[in-house]
Each structure stands twice: as C-alpha cells, then as structure tokens.
C-alpha cells in the first residue's frame, strides 16, 4: 500500500477545532506528459479522498491531475468524541489506500 503520513492530534478538548494533515505517496501522472519518445504517458491519479470520524464523513475531495504529486491536504474538524478518524484514497487503476488514527476527546 502507498506510504501515507497522517497528523491528527492524539488528544483534544470537546468542541475544539482540530487540524488534520495528510500526505500520501502517489505520482499523480497527469496524462498530459509525453515520455521520451513523445508518446503520452497514461493518466494515473488519485481521484477521491474521504475522511471519516467514527464512520461519519467529515471531509471529501475530488482530485484532478492538477493536484501535485504526493497529494497533501490540511483541513479541520470539530473534536466531538473519542474514537477513530479514518482516511481513504482511491483512484485510477484500482488504486486504494487507507489509514486511520485514534483520538481521545475529553
């Protein structure tokens, strides 16, 4: 599975707005780049990224070739309860990756 770097605070106070940072390894081949014979390299990108908090979707993104290689997203959510924040990436050629992080909310 592709390497991912997730940054979620381990602890938060109920009601706090926390920042989540995600970085995943992926070339995001645009489909517009020629190889050295001039032939276009086929598109191969991550197209969707979803973040869920205890199963509830809190953030979603549709990615296009204009997203840089190794897609990076920073977004926020309200710390509502302790549990699991999960991340799922999917894309061309059946690409799929998942990660999760635990959070304690007091």
């Amino acid at each position, binding site marked *: 599975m592709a*390497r*991912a*770097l997730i*940054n979620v605070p381990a602890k938060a106070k109920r009601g706090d707005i926390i920042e989540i*940072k995600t*970085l*995943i*390894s992926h*070339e*995001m081949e645009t489909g517009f780049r020629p190889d050295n014979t001039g032939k276009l390299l086929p598109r191969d990108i991550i197209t969707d990224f979803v973040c869920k908090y205890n199963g509830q979707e809190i953030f979603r993104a549709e990615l296009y070739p204009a997203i*840089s*290689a*190794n897609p*990076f997203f*920073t977004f926020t959510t309200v710390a509502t309860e302790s549990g699991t924040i999960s991340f799922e990436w999917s894309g061309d050629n059946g690409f799929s990756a998942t990660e999760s992080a635990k959070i304690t909310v007091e």
Partner: protein
Amino acid sequence: MIRGVAAVLIGAALSVSVIAAEIPSSERKSGYDLMAREIRAMQDDDTANPGMLSVLDGEALWTRKAGAAGKSCADCHSDAQSSMKGVAARYPAFDAARGRPIDLEQRINICRSDQQKATPFAFESKDLLALSAYVGRQSRGMPIEIPDDPRLKPFLEAGRDMFNQRQGQLNLSCAQCHNDNWGQKLAGAVIPQGHANGYPMYRLEWQALGSLQRRLRNCLVGMRAVSYALGAPEYVDLELYLMWRARGMPVETPAVRP
C-alpha cells in the same frame, strides 16, 4: 535568459585565469534562505515535507531482513537514531578497501552486497533513496564535517578542479554560476550557491526525491556538457568537494527545493 548568460560570461571573462574565488564563509547561504516562504514551510513541517515519505520508507527498510545472509540493517547497526547520527554529515568518506572516497549510497550498497549478501540497489532507485534519506535524516541539524584526512586530498582537488573547470557548449563552470552569480536570476529562477547540504532532497521540479548525483547530472545537461553515468567516480570527487565547500552548514535532509 540571454542577458543572464551574457552577465555570466562577462563575469567569467573577469575571472578567467584565477582559481575562482570561493564564497567567504560569512556569506554562505543554504538554498533554504533563497527560496520562497511557502517552500521553506514545506521543508520545515515533517508532516508536510514530501521527502519524509521516503524517510518513512527507509525506516521500514532498515528493519527488513534481506539477502542470502537474512540480515537487516538493524541487525548490525541496531537503532539508526543513535548509530547513524552524524554519518551523513561526514560523507563521502574514504574507503580503505577501495583506496578512494565513496558516497553514502555506495556505502549502503556495499553493506547490501558484502554484509547482507543481497543484490545492490540500482542508483536512484526508490529503496536506495529511501535508505539514504533515512540515514541522512539522522544527521539533520548537525554541521557538515569532512575530516582533514590526507588520503582524501587528491580526490578533493579533483572535485575542486571539476567545479572550476569550464565545460560544455556553454563553456560554463559550476563556479561561474554558484560562486560568482549566486543570488542573481537565471531565466526567472534564483541561482543558489549550490551546497550539498540537504540531499537526498525533494525537488519540486522532479516531483520526487533525488540524490545529489541526479542533480549534478541535471546541471551538466543544463550546461550542455557531457554527463557521467550514475555512480561514476567523478561525481563522488565532486560530491566530496561540495560537502567540503559546505562544511559547517547544518544538514537539512530531506530538504525541499524548487
């Protein structure tokens, strides 16, 4: 672009028979200082630095058993955070068996073939870069320090000569851009001093992590000069000189550069 090249050539004419003046140590600047705020922020944040993905891969490889000997790096070197501290800051290092300096990637491959009895990694391969990035990361913040070893001297001189020698269709030397015209613009991009203090680095132009040798090859291609195959001794001599030239500067691996 024409104006930039003309400026460089005029500068070159003025310094043609002099061993190009090195940058005084008080004026030495890392490429970090010359780049935009947003790119510096990318380097500073380990959770946003794309080079860290390779460091994490390297961390995983460190404990993976490999080769006929079924050993991992950790089996001999245990915890990299202590055993590899300071190592990247003093490479390229002299290898007595080979009678010449070798760089960190070559050192990793020697361990791989001699100790692990595994096939060496290809230069610029994902795994080799990951291990090199992981080892390099253990020296982050430490000053670069090439030891005053008399055995290194002839190779250091060879590297220095290459740095100062005019070459290629543009008849440029590394020194003309990186000693004499750093800070100025070449086709809209700022010319850095060209220090080797953050390799392997994530170059935005590559959208990937790459080694110093990859960067040197690109420079040579950019100068329209003949480049060498990866792993060539000429590169290691030049790397040795570049690390010596950057002595005292803190290691930034994995650096991010435009």
